[in-house]
């Protein structure tokens, strides 16, 4: 072990890293928000929605959960242009992450909904709420609260999985590390820094999700 660490290139290349961190954060912010929303809609369809829509959503969830994320990304970026839908690499990355998180989170949220005691639905009905109002006010929030830790983990997994979007030239944090590595040949240092940044981002993301949970589940203290 006589490897000499050399971080002199940081002064020249740190804007790349900062830009990469910005894009990774943007990707996960959009991906988490839209992905969880999509997940809630899909979970509602599969648990309580109209019968004709259930197989459609089930097919979508099975398709996404049983294919690699990288292939989904390539399909959107390289494949869809042949069908006339040309997306930039950032749009493609956002869409891939939304679609991916939507499928995984719908299964997690569905578990929360199905664990709701039948009495809750009956209580909603006895208060003259429509099924949708019951879902919105009585079922959804406690369900989310139940599965929030699992959902948070899934969001972190998707954030870490976003590293592969550098394959379609989206200039995220991994792209910055690869770029610096190919220019300076300081591979160990470049990946050392990107590893540290990913670790910090993942811990921060978990904290943020914890705080979000604390705000949207005000009845937590009463439980």
């Amino acid at each position, binding site marked *: 072990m006589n490897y000499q660490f050399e971080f002199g290139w940081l002064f020249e290349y740190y804007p790349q890293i900062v830009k990469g961190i910005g894009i990774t954060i943007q990707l996960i912010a959009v991906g988490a928000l839209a992905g969880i929303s999509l997940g809630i809609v899909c979970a509602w369809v599969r648990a309580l929605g109209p019968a004709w829509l259930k197989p459609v959503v089930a097919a979508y969830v099975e398709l996404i959960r049983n294919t690699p994320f990288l292939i989904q990304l*390539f399909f959107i*970026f*390289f*494949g869809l*242009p*042949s069908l006339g839908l*040309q997306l930039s*690499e950032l749009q493609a990355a956002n869409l891939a992450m939304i679609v991916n998180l939507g499928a995984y989170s719908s299964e997690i949220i569905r578990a929360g909904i199905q664990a709701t005691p039948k009495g809750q639905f009956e209580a909603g009905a006895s208060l003259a709420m429509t099924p949708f109002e019951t879902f919105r006010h009585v079922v959804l929030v406690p369900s989310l609260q139940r599965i929030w830790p699992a959902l948070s983990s899934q969001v972190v997994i998707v954030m870490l999985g976003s590293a592969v979007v*550098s*394959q*379609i*030239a989206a200039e995220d944090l991994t*792209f910055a590390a*690869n*770029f610096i590595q*190919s*220019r300076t040949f300081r591979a160990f240092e470049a990946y050392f820094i990107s590893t540290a940044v990913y670790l910090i981002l993942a811990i921060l993301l978990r904290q943020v999700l914890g705080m979000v949970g604390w705000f949207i589940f005000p009845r937590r203290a009463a439980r």
Partner: protein
Amino acid sequence: MISRRLFVAMTAMAAAIGFGSVAQADALGDITARGTIRVAVPQDFPPFGSVGPDMAPVGYDIDMANLIAEKLSVKVELVPVTSANRIPYLQTNKVDLVISSLGKNPDREKVIDFSAAYAPFYNGVFAPADFVATKPEELAGKTIGVTRGAVEDLELTKVAPADTVIKRYEDNNGTISAFLSGQVEAVATGNVVAAAILAKNPPKRPELKFLIKNSPCYIGLSKEQPALLEKVNGIIAAAKTDGTLNAIAQKWLGTDLPAEL
């Protein structure tokens, strides 16, 4: 002790090499007397040299070797080499010529001689016919795909205007896919890669817009062989004039020879 032994060994080796070059004083005479010319060719570098369906080597370099043998009225003996051992094969007199997509540089010129250029090898910007650019400055505002870290990436980054959008892909396949799916307007790559795309006959045809870096291929031969060098250069010049070489380029690279070759 060790250093004295080393000295003796080195003297012996120098003498052997010295005699070796004396022995091949007239390579052209040897080739004619033998009736065969031994040519080092690649077998792992399409389209210059690869193994065909019948296990025989095929490619641009093999056609070139056959052409030279034909003009010298001798039989050809193809010797498969790798890029690492092609020059040692020539130095140790295992072959008469190296036709193995060999580029010229000062280090190599110290140990072997080079013929005139016989094949184009360059990096350039390629795009369909409706893409207009004749020099790097005209790339301003356009989207160019390139393979990250390749020579053409480094060169293009240097010469392209600041507002050129350069998309860097992980490997040649990514760059090619991005070009064919219309994610980038043009690609900066080697003529060999462009030829590989053209061979698939795609809807978007990558045509050369301008050169980024040019390092054509030369035939390598032993030092101090003026008769053989003159003969080989004569064959190359004649093949350029009568269109034989252009036909080989069309066959393997899918394009005409560039005018500067």
